[in-house]
């Protein structure tokens, strides 16, 4: 520290240059052994606690036989289909299909959609009738309609027109696409007509209430659709979900007025349960029978993007990011001490005598502590995704896939979370001039609020949601990478990895707090005697 002060004193002409100030603050930082050690410990704790956390979870696979689940969960190497966009998807349904070579138009009328759900606490009966304990209830996102898909392989590109349990007619495509059509409930008195028209790679969906007046719902282009596609009626019904529980459901739909290019009604159809042999028992085998031109089809599962939730499909690769909480407390201590130690030792008077522009001193301190903790954060967080994901996989967990770009965003985001929180602690230390109070305040605003909202979960959902929107704890949203989809029924809570704000929006809230605190700190630093 002494060396810096001599330099700032002798090179008088240059002493207010911002670069000089940053250099002075950097010299102070690197020459205090405790802070350097603490920064290294912060990075090491982030990595060590994170990898420990990632080595914990274990998922056993539930073997599913033709009659539903059979036998106890066993170690496995789970997998999950991946959609055309690279995201994990659910792709299980009952499909009554035939080949469609070239272009054409398929039309059906749906007159009924009913559903049954398994009871709470796993109610799949052993034996030939796994659904015997089910009760009548239709899932809001149960789906029945017509689908055109590249193949019956899971994860294939598709477009579908469907009636849903509670969300009217929809056109959905390639798992994430969803366009609403006719709203309202369907009944035998008020059936729904659905039509899909294929022209090359382009599919257009229409709906109608009477079979004569048709409305276009949407047009999509499915890249790389083969010449011959599979097409026909389908039914599926997603698992019911509660915060800690889920179970399979089935739906049954009645189709008539089936029109397919070049065929007589009722001839040449194949029925198949797509993906019903999934290791997670959220999809039961389906069935269909045709009488004359009327098809009665029963299916179970979902055609939709998949994410973490009570159905326990898999885990996000960011389990290890919990290590950032350990790193966070360390960087908060370092950030606060970076200014309070100067007050404690009286060094602040020398600092301000050497550089009278007090706001710039604070800015230089923020730049140094932010950069150092960012680098430490990158070093600590970098191993968490590749090593953490392989640890999770080695314990039988399916890990939701992410692109290389997302991986970079997550590591940089966690490092930035540490850096901005350290700057917030620096500002709090300047405002309070008191390390213990500043550290407790910032730990409370970040870690303790997260603790109250997520692991403790005593707060009602609304209050926790509000806290994770307006407090600095909103910044933790940066670790979410599997998005929440309105068209998928799931429990979208922070416990399952879904935050109320989008990743960068949440991070922005934290930045606003840090900026506001830094402004207040600069004003107080100018006004008060040091």
């Amino acid at each position, binding site marked *: 520290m002494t060396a810096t002060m001599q330099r700032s004193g002798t090179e008088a002409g240059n002493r207010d240059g911002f670069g000089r100030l940053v250099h002075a603050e950097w010299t102070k930082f690197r020459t205090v052994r405790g802070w350097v050690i603490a920064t290294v410990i912060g990075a090491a704790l982030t990595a060590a606690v994170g990898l420990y956390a990632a080595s914990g979870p274990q998922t056993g696979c539930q073997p599913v036989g033709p009659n539903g689940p059979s036998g106890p969960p066993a170690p496995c190497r789970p997998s999950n289909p991946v959609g055309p966009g690279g995201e994990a998807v659910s792709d299980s349904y009952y499909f009554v299909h035939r080949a469609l070579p070239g272009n054409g138009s398929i039309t059906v009328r749906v007159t009924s959609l009913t559903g049954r759900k398994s009871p709470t606490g796993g109610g799949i009966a052993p034996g030939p009738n796994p659904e015997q304990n089910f009760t009548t209830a239709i899932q809001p996102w149960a789906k029945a309609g017509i689908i055109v898909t590249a193949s019956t392989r899971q994860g294939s590109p598709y477009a579908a027109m469907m009636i849903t349990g509670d969300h009217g007619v929809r056109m959905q495509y390639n798992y994430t696409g969803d366009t609403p059509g006719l709203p309202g409930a369907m009944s035998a008195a008020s059936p729904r007509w659905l039509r899909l028209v294929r022209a090359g790679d382009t599919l257009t969906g229409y709906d109608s209430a009477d079979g004569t007046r048709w409305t276009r719902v949407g047009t999509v282009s499915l890249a790389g659709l083969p010449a011959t596609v599979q097409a026909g009626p389908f039914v599926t019904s997603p698992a019911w979900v509660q915060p800690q529980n889920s179970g399979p459901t089935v739906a049954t739909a009645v189709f008539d007025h089936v029109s397919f290019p070049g065929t007589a009604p009722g001839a040449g159809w194949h029925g198949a349960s797509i993906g019903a042999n999934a290791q997670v028992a959220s999809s039961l085998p389906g069935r269909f029978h045709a009488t004359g031109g009327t098809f009665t089809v029963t299916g179970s599962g979902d055609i939709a993007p998949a994410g973490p939730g009570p159905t326990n499909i898999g885990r996000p690769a960011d389990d290890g990011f919990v290590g950032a*909480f350990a790193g966070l407390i360390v960087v908060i*201590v370092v950030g606060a001490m970076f200014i309070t130690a100067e007050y404690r030792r009286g060094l602040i008077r020398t600092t301000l005598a050497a550089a009278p522009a007090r706001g710039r001193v604070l800015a230089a301190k923020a730049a140094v502590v932010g950069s150092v903790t960012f680098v430490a954060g990158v070093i600590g967080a970098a191993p968490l995704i590749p090593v953490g994901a392989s640890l999770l996989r080695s314990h039988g967990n399916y890990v939701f896939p992410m692109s290389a770009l997302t991986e970079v965003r997550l590591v940089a985001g966690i490092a930035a979370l540490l850096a901005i929180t350290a700057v917030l602690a620096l500002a709090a230390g300047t405002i309070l001039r008191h390390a*213990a109070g500043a550290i*407790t305040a910032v730990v*409370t605003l970040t*870690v303790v609020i997260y603790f109250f909202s997520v692991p403790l979960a*005593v*707060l009602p959902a609304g209050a926790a949601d509000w806290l994770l929107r307006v407090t600095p704890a909103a910044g933790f949203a940066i670790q979410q990478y599997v998005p929440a989809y309105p068209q998928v029924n799931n429990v979208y809570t922070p416990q399952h990895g879904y935050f109320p704000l989008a990743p960068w929006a949440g991070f922005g809230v934290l930045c606003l707090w840090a900026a506001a605190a830094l402004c207040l700190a600069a004003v107080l630093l100018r006004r008060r005697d040091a």
Partner: protein
Amino acid sequence: MRTALHAEWTKLRTLPGTGWLLIGVVAATVIISAAVSASVSCSSPANCHVDVTKLSLTGTYLGQAVVAIVAVLAVGGEYATGMIRTTLAAMPRRTAVLAAKAAVVTAVTLAAGTLAVLGSVLAGWLILPGHGYTPANGYPVLSLANGTVLRAATGTVLYLALIALLSLGVAAAVRDAAVAIGAVLGLLYLFPILTQVAGSPGIARHLQQIGPMTAGLEIQASTGLRSLPIGPWAGLGVLAAWAAAALLAGTLVLRRRDA
């Protein structure tokens, strides 16, 4: 020892922050407890399995952080100002100094903790019946005449005192208020956050058994006692062991090292 106690009491009493911090302990605990009590509601008995005793004492989670500041400053403040050298010159028996500090800090924490707990239970007693938590729905009246509620309430006061002793020991061991408060808060809050991601229930339960906060706060449990990771008094014992270990480390450092 009496002079040591008197000296420590004078130092703690005359610090400008102590009074405010003790008010902060009471305020943080009571406000959070009352807010959580006011935010829950039980419309039908089937869908709210809540431990009302524990719920009415939720503010402890925040109040303990303020208790930790009080205790950490009692030691760390002297190192910050250099006062510790005067203290040790006047009172060369260093163990006695730490014991006197521990006694004084414990006494003020017990006083503030009693007010905080009484305020929280009072708030729960006033608020919760209006939100459906009535004896008719199967919830006991939050009365200190109820043995379980009394155990939870007195146990919470003891919990806060043990947190103070833990913080005091850590502060004496690391000799710096900032590092000590970081260590204490990390120790308290990291265990439950780790429990959240420990996917295997066995590991999660084990973490809850050894964490100073997770084990210690089982003293507030009034329902489902058979399924707790650790019994109420055994849990408080775990926290006492942490506090004893921290005080031992603090004593050794204080005796061995130059101030």
